[in-house]
């Protein structure tokens, strides 16, 4: 009952290395089998502890495979994103970077294996659970979508609005200033440049103070100077304790980031995700 976990744990550790107490790890992997009462209580207690501590891993992939129907895009992917970690995800275009991110915020469900988001199996999550988890995950897309009929400030505050929370107007102004869009608060999204949209998307992604920020080619539309600015913002967020995963093929950006902090680089190749070596 408590076996069959070593493979997953070993792979996970290989990538991220944030182990957790052995007993938590062991009972975490017992699955849904029938447990003796004592073990049940232990399991519940462990779950309670994990939630109270904010979880030991925010997003975990366990032997994940994904098949679009026309063949496998990802197979046997295992990794964990530990709280406060900073990862890049790279690989040739079409390798599955976006799919990987979509799996991480439950836009897609894995066709094999298991994705856990805040220690919850993505397949078991209801639509409302997914909505709630997205309030803890900020997503920045390459082609970020906005509500074009509403001004930028309202768009950036949208996560608060849909969560029926009222934001502080001063905080919103401060956030817009922080991403350099303070003067564009009343502009409509179609009036913004590519770089401004990227920064607005970042502001929207972090307004709920999420635990995780997932960015898909966030610098895709930006010149180098603007890319550096965005990277600086992300590094700053990471220093505040946010977990960050950036999918990009911009090697210069990755080198720049590695000079500033201990970022890990994951590479998707041949349907697998591997920790990239020193070739960067």
């Amino acid at each position, binding site marked *: 009952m408590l076996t069959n976990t070593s493979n997953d744990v070993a792979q996970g550790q290989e990538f991220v290395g944030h182990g957790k107490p052995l007993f938590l790890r062991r009972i975490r992997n017992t699955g849904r089998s029938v447990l003796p009462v004592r073990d049940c209580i232990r399991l519940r207690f462990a779950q309670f502890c994990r939630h109270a501590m904010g979880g030991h891993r925010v997003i975990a992939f366990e032997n994940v495979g994904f098949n679009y129907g026309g063949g496998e895009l990802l197979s046997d992917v295992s990794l964990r994103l530990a709280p406060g970690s900073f990862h890049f995800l790279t690989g040739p275009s079409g390798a599955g970077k976006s799919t990987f991110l979509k799996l991480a915020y439950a836009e897609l469900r894995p066709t094999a294996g298991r994705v856990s988001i805040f220690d919850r199996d993505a397949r078991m999550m209801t639509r409302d659970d997914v909505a709630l988890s997205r309030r803890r995950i900020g997503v920045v897309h390459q082609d970020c*979508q906005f*509500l074009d009929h509403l001004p930028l400030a309202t768009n950036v505050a949208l996560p608060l609005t*849909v969560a029926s929370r009222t934001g502080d107007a001063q905080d919103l102004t401060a956030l817009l200033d922080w991403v350099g869009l303070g003067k564009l608060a009343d502009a409509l999204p179609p009036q913004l440049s590519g770089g401004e949209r990227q920064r607005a998307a970042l502001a929207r992604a972090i307004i709920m103070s999420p635990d995780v920020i997932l960015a898909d080619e966030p610098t895709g539309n930006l010149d180098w100077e603007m890319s550096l600015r965005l990277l600086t913002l992300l590094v700053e967020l990471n220093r505040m304790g946010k977990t960050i995963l950036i999918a990009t093929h911009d090697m210069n950006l990755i080198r720049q980031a590695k000079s500033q902090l201990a970022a890990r680089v994951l590479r998707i190749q041949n349907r697998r995700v591997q920790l990239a070596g020193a070739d960067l």
Partner: protein
Amino acid sequence: MKLVLPALLAADRQADRVVPPSGFTAQLTLFTSGSMAFLAVFALALSLASGRLADRWASALAGTATIRISAPPEQLDTQVAAVLALLSTTPGIASARALDSAEQRALLEPWFGPDLPIDALPLPRLIELAEASPGYDSDGLRLRLAAEAPGAVLDDHTRWRRPMAQAAERLRLLGALSLFLIAGSTAAMITLAANSALAANLPVIRVLRLVGAKDAYIVRAFVRRFTLRALTGAAIGTVLAMIGIALLPRADAAGAFLTGLGFEGAGWLLPLLLPPVVSILAFAATRAAAFRTLKGLT
């Protein structure tokens, strides 16, 4: 509905604003629910009016028939007795009695005056019979009368109205059926309008899902809009139709069918139910459409 509508009205306008205003579908919903309510008022009026007509004619049917016996004076009493005996054994006849000469004089008085020498005239004798429910078979009765009393003629003067009363009854049913069809069409059209609005707003819905909106929040934004539009449209349609019916010329001659179309007394309150009913339909149709659309998205 009592609970839902105020909640919808009170819902934060912010939720409504996240969906961009869509002039065309808005007008379409308004127009559809308005015209459907307008038609529904007339179907309701038709149903109520034909119901009244059916009742009136049916009650007239419950009246009497007469048998007229013309025979040579010496056979008259025999034939009257024979007919009365025959009627007493005919199923469907509640009672039968022969009118005496005073009653016959009273019947003739309006026509010939009080001085009519009734005894000197070879008047036929009249037998009044009351029909039971279910009624008698008039063709069979005629045949038996011809055999027993050759001078007897059955005059079931109100019976010709029976098919008309049935027709009025059918008309009432058709009116009710029309109401159901109108309700169904309203729901179908609002579903189509909602579907088109949802399809047009898929990018908006995706953004909302991405930033953590629950389905209920997104659905509410659409449902609120469509329900309020349908309510407004239906209210306008109902009021216009009620004014139209109130302006119809009144019936002075009893039973004038077309001019009898309309509402009487408390019947005027019935069309007022249409706007809430239409908004309930819009609420349910939009809600179902929205949840169906969302189910296909992640």
